C-alpha cells in the first residue's frame, strides 16, 4: 500500500540490486501468483453475486443484478450497516485521539512514562480479538454496562488503538520539537500550539490512523458478536445470514458493495495524501 510510505514523507530510499532477466521473470510470476491468490476469492464472490439463482455455483443460472437490488432494499441490512458506520466512526475517533496521546508520550515522554504508554497502547495487538471480546463482556456486565453499540464502540476503540498508535508513531517522531517551542516563543498558548503548529504536519498520518481504525471496526466480528446484544452490526448480520441459504446471495451482493466502497475510500485518501494532504492555511 503506497499510502503508508507516502504519508510519512518518505526519505526517498532507493535500493539498487541486480536481477537477471530470468530472475526478473520468475519474480514477476511469483508476484502475480500471490496477487491472484489474494484476489481470486473476491473475484469469485463478484461473479457469483451476479448469479440469478439461489445456489452459488458454476455455471451461473443467469446474469443479473437482482440480489443487489434486493440487498439495497433490505432495511434490516441497512440498519445493521448504519450501526456499523456509527460504531466505526466513534471508535475510530476515540482510538485516534488516544493513539495521538500515546504516540506523544512514547516519543517525547521521559523514563517510565514512555514504557507505560507503549505497553498500554500497543499490547492489545497481541491479544486475540476473541479474548478482548470475552473479557470486556465480563467487565461490562460487572460495571453494569449493557450489551449495546456503545459497548462495541469501546471494545473496538481498544482493539484498534495499537494499530492507530503504530501508524502515528513514525509521523510524531518526525515532528520537529523546536516547532512547538517556536510557536510558544511567538506567543501561542499550549492548546493553540497543538492545532496550529504541532499537529498539522502530522495530519496525513492522523487521517490514515483514523481510516485504519474505522475499517478495522467496520469488519470486526468477534468483539462485536460478544458485545452488540440485540442489535446487529454489518458483520454480525452477514454471519447470521449465512445460516439461511436463501439469504446468502443478498449477503454476497452486499459484501461486493462493501469491498468496492473500501477500495474507493482508500483511493480517495491516497490521492489526498499525495497532494500533500496537510491543509494549507489561507490568508
Amino acid at each position, binding site marked *: 500500500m503506497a499510502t503508508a510510505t507516502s504519508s510519512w514523507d518518505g526519505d526517498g530510499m532507493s535500493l539498487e540490486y541486480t536481477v537477471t532477466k530470468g530472475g526478473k521473470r520468475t519474480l514477476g510470476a511469483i508476484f502475480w501468483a500471490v496477487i491472484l491468490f489474494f484476489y481470486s476469492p473476491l473475484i469469485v464472490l463478484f461473479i457469483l453475486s451476479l448469479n440469478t439463482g439461489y445456489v452459488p455455483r458454476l455455471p451461473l443460472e443467469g446474469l443479473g443484478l437482482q440480489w443487489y437490488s434486493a440487498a439495497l432494499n433490505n432495511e434490516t441490512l441497512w440498519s445493521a450497516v448504519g450501526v456499523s458506520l456509527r460504531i466505526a466512526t466513534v471508535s475510530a475517533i476515540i482510538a485516534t485521539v488516544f493513539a495521538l496521546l500515546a504516540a506523544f508520550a512514547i516519543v517525547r515522554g521521559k523514563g517510565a512514562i514512555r514504557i507505560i504508554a507503549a505497553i498500554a497502547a500497543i499490547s492489545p495487538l497481541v491479544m486475540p480479538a476473541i479474548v478482548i471480546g470475552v473479557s470486556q463482556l465480563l467487565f461490562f456486565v460487572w460495571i453494569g454496562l449493557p450489551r449495546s453499540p456503545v459497548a462495541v464502540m469501546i471494545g473496538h476503540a481498544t482493539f484498534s488503538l495499537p494499530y492507530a498508535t503504530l501508524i502515528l508513531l513514525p509521523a510524531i517522531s518526525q515532528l*520537529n520539537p523546536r*516547532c512547538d517551542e*517556536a*510557536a510558544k516563543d511567538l*506567543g501561542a498558548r499550549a492548546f493553540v500550539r497543538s492545532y496550529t503548529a504541532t499537529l498539522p504536519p502530522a495530519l496525513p498520518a492522523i487521517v490514515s490512523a483514523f481510516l485504519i481504525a474505522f475499517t478495522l471496526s467496520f469488519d470486526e466480528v468477534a468483539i462485536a458478536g460478544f458485545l452488540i446484544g440485540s442489535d446487529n452490526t454489518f458483520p454480525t448480520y452477514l454471519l447470521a445470514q449465512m445460516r439461511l441459504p436463501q439469504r446468502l446471495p443478498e449477503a454476497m451482493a452486499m459484501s461486493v458493495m462493501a469491498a468496492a466502497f473500501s477500495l474507493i475510500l482508500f483511493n480517495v485518501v491516497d490521492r489526498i495524501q499525495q497532494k500533500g494532504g496537510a491543509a494549507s492555511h489561507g490568508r
Partner: protein
Amino acid sequence: MAVELKSISKSFGAVTIIDDLSLKVERGEFLAFLGPSGCGKSTTLRMIAGLENPDSGQITIDGDDITSVPANKRPINMVFQSYALFPHMTVWDNIAYGLRRDGLTGDVLAARVEEGVRLVRLEQLADRKPSALSGGQQQRVALARSLVKKPKALLLDEPLGALDPILRHHMQRELKALQGQTDTTFIYVAHHQDEAFGLADRVCVMAGGNVVQLDTPEIVYRQPKDSFVASFIGQINRLPPIEGSVLDLGEGGCVRVVKPSLNGKTGYGVRPEAVRLGKPDDAEKSSWLVGKVSDIIFRGPSFEVEVETEKAGRHMVVGLQCDLNPPSKDDDVVVHWPNEQTMQFQELDDDQA
C-alpha cells in the same frame, strides 16, 4: 539596559550548567556568546527566551522582572538553529503566525507581514512552503517571523550553523544590516569566532557555566583575560614563563615584556600573525627566538610556517603573507615580533596549551 541576568543558576539533574551568571546587555547592542560546547551558552539563551527556567536568579528586560513570565508572553523572540519553520504553512503564514497570536487580522496583519517579507527580501517567495526554499531563504523567513513581532531583544541560536561557508558569510552581512535597520538588541550564540567577531559589538566568552570575559572583539582577541580565552579565541603561540620583564636565552633569543605585570600566575603568548621571519631590525624593540622550520602549510591567503625553537622549547606558528617566499623545511630561522605584541594573561593551572 535591555536585558539583565542577575545571579542565574541552572542545573539539569546533578549537572550544573549555569553557575551564578550575571550579565548586562545594552539596548540596541549586538552581543555574541562564544564558548566550547557545553559551556552553557545555548542554555543561557533559552532561559532569556523562557524555554528553560533558571533554578535561581532573576532575568529583567527594561527593568521589568520576567523571570516567571512564560515564553509566549515575553517581548523577546528567538531564531532557532534548525529554523523551526512550520512546514505546513507558506512563507507568508509563517511570518504571520506570531502576529496572529497577538490578535492582528485583516489589513493590519497584512501590512505587518508584507513589511517583514520586504525586510528579508522574500517578496517573490511569499507563497512557497519552507520545503521549497534554500537554507538561506529559510533562515530569512525565520528572521522575519521573529522580527515582525518587534521584540525588545532577538535571540539567535547558532543561526548560521547549518549554512555553507559562502552563504554564511553572506548572511552575516544581512544580519548586521537587519540589526541596523530594526535597531533591535541581538543576542547571538556564535558557531565560530569569525561570526562573533564580524557581527558583535561585544563578545561574551563563556566556560563552565559562567562568563569568562565580556569585551569588544578587539580586546578579547588582543588582551585575553586568561589562558583559556587566549587559546580558545584564535591561534596563539604560548611562550615560556618570564621572570621579571626579560627572558634572555642568550644565543637562543630574547623575549621582552613591555606591559605592566599582572598579579598572580601569568602566561605569555604571541599571535602567529604578529610574528615575522628573519632577524629583527631593532633588537631593543623586538623579541626574537632561534629555531628550525618543522613544517609549512599553505592556507590560501597565507602560509603557516611551523618553527621549533629549541632553546625556548616551544612550537611556534608564524603566519606568512602569501606573496613572500616561504622557507624550506629544516631551514634554521630567526623569528621576531614587536615587544608590545607579547600578550600576558592570567595562567590557569589546568590549561597548559
